[in-house]
């Protein structure tokens, strides 16, 4: 167990492609950090640099107090779980777990103890003699985690470990990873593009975009206060409604001139305002917008998903699409006009040009 410190890490690939642009993260001992972002955001590169599978162009990586920039992956005291499990196909499960320990010249009895212990924790004791190809996807995933556990490393690195599993198994393994990490208290860095996985697993989220950190924080904090329009649209499903507005005589207005009542704002910057689908409520009549936001929209589609329903609508007279979460079994017709209201504390303001959050 150990802290991991990333200090202004940059990665430039040949051809001057900058994959990671000066990322700094302090990971506490025993913390579960999730790196999340769309493909190509540099999250995997960052993880691979911690693992030692990629060179660091500039910056420093420390595990504990030890600078590990030039340390061989095997000597970094980390264990990695790969997306396609990367089990050795010709070795039994037992040998898959034991291989890394054997290479370290560990005592046979100690290897046996650790493998048995990991097998017990992961409930794979019955398959120790099988080859990986005789296992199901979920079992392979457990073996891959077992290979990490037996090492008793300073840190676990997970590279999208659940994306090869079917939806049901994914939820199950997600819970298991969380439980395991809490039990072992091993510092973990987990890479995923799935925001739900990120939200549920992380102690702290690191949202990456284009090689930069957009935001670091506890999942709910990130959800409640997204630092940018990117985070706002990436974290949370369905995504936050983002609407371009302009300031017209101290009043907010849609860019197409349509009226939109909202609180008074200062300055002349172009805004984007954001409201999550669950924070828009259907009301009987249009309010005056003196506190909060009042909208008038036309229903396009009603989408029942069971526990709740979603309305896809648009502003009367055209404009951006708006998504509203309503109670399950709600009945709305297409082209029906609805009045919506959002409370002031649920409205997020962003600078339309930089995409950064504007507070106050």
């Amino acid at each position, binding site marked *: 167990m150990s802290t991991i410190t990333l200090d202004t890490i940059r990665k430039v690939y040949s051809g001057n492609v900058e994959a990671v642009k000066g990322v700094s993260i302090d990971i506490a001992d025993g913390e579960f950090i999730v790196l999340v972002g769309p493909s190509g955001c540099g999250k995997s590169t960052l993880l691979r640099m911690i*693992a*030692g*599978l990629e060179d660091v162009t500039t910056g420093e990586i420390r595990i504990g107090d030890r600078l590990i920039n030039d340390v*061989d*992956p*095997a*000597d970094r005291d*980390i*264990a*990695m779980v*790969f*997306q*396609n499990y*990367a*089990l*050795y*196909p*010709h070795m039994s499960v037992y040998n898959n777990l034991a*291989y*890394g320990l054997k*290479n*370290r010249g560990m005592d046979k009895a100690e290897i046996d103890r650790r493998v048995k212990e990991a097998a017990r924790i992961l409930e794979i004791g019955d398959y120790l003699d099988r080859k*990986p*190809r005789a296992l199901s996807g979920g079992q392979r995933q457990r073996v891959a985690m077992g*290979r990490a556990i037996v090492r008793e490393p300073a840190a676990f690195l997970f590279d999208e470990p659940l994306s090869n599993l079917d939806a049901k198994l994914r939820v199950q393994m997600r819970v298991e990873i969380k439980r395991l990490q809490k039990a072992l208290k091993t510092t973990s860095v987990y890479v995923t593009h799935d925001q739900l996985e990120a939200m549920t697993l992380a102690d702290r989220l690191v949202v990456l975009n284009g090689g930069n950190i957009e935001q670091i924080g506890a999942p709910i904090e990130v959800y409640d206060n997204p630092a940018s329009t990117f985070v706002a649209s990436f974290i949370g499903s369905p995504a936050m409604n983002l609407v371009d507005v302009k300031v017209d005589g101290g009043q907010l207005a849609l860019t197409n001139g349509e009226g939109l009542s909202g609180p008074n704002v200062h300055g002349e910057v172009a805004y984007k305002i954001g409201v999550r689908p669950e924070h828009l409520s259907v009301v009987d009549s249009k309010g005056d917008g003196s506190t909060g936001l009042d909208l008038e929209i036309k229903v396009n589609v009603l989408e029942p998903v069971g526990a709740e329903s979603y309305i896809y609508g648009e502003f009367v007279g055209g404009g951006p699409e708006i998504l509203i979460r309503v109670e399950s079994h709600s009945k709305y017709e297409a082209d029906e006009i609805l009045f919506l209201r959002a409370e002031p504390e649920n409205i997020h303001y962003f600078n339309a040009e930089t995409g950064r959050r504007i507070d106050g």
Partner: protein
Amino acid sequence: MKKVKLTDHLVLLTGVFFMVTPVILAFITSTHDAVTIYRQGLQFTFGDQGLDAYETVLFRAGGFTKEVNGLVMLKNSLILGLGFAIGKIVVSMLAAYAIVYFRFPMATLCFWVIFTTLLLPLEVRILPSYEIVQKLGMVNTYSGLIIPLIASATGTFFFRQFFMSIPDELTEAARIDGAGPWKFFIDILVPLSKTMMAAIFIIMFVYGWNQYLWPTLITTDESFFTLVRGIKQILQVWVGAQIPDYDQIMAMAILAMLPPVIIVVIFQSWFVKGLVESDK
């Protein structure tokens, strides 16, 4: 499963007919005496000599020096075939390992240089090759027979393609597990390549076994003669007032065919198994 149709069998039977008939004819003919064969050509019924020709070929010392018999030639052929197959697998695996897994200057160029040697068959470079082997004093040695032909572009190419199909993550997992380059090769790559090695072994053994031109040049000492050369030798040496011992030639051809057939039969089950198991 698709129903097996009559035409499927017909196609197979035709194939078998074309492949096997010459062998059977050679075997039947070998049971006749040389005079009958000389007079009447290939025979279609068994003769009265039984397997005498085989005994003669295997155990009677023949040749110019009367020192070499079929068993010695069989041994030489085996050494050549096995030496070829094993040597080529080792060398081409190591070459492919270097090309695929190590970054060194002009690695791609190296690969293409190796690959283009496919275009240069032995016959093209036989004189310089002979010159070198002769200067090294390797004429009339097993190493002279085997080593100059041990580099294999085909083998290197096959192993390269195979190694490239092994997921990078497996290599990375091994790196994190503390397997150095040598351990990775021995513990991971070699076991994974088993079926590939079996395939190359079949091809290269038969190729080595059937070598004719190179052994003819490199070995003048009859104790190094291979079976394939033995066939020629029977024709050559016994030609005189006598007619050639056609029965013995046929017998020797059959004998020369047996080991490659055995090798193919043994390894083909492996080979097929390797094709069916897609896991890497």
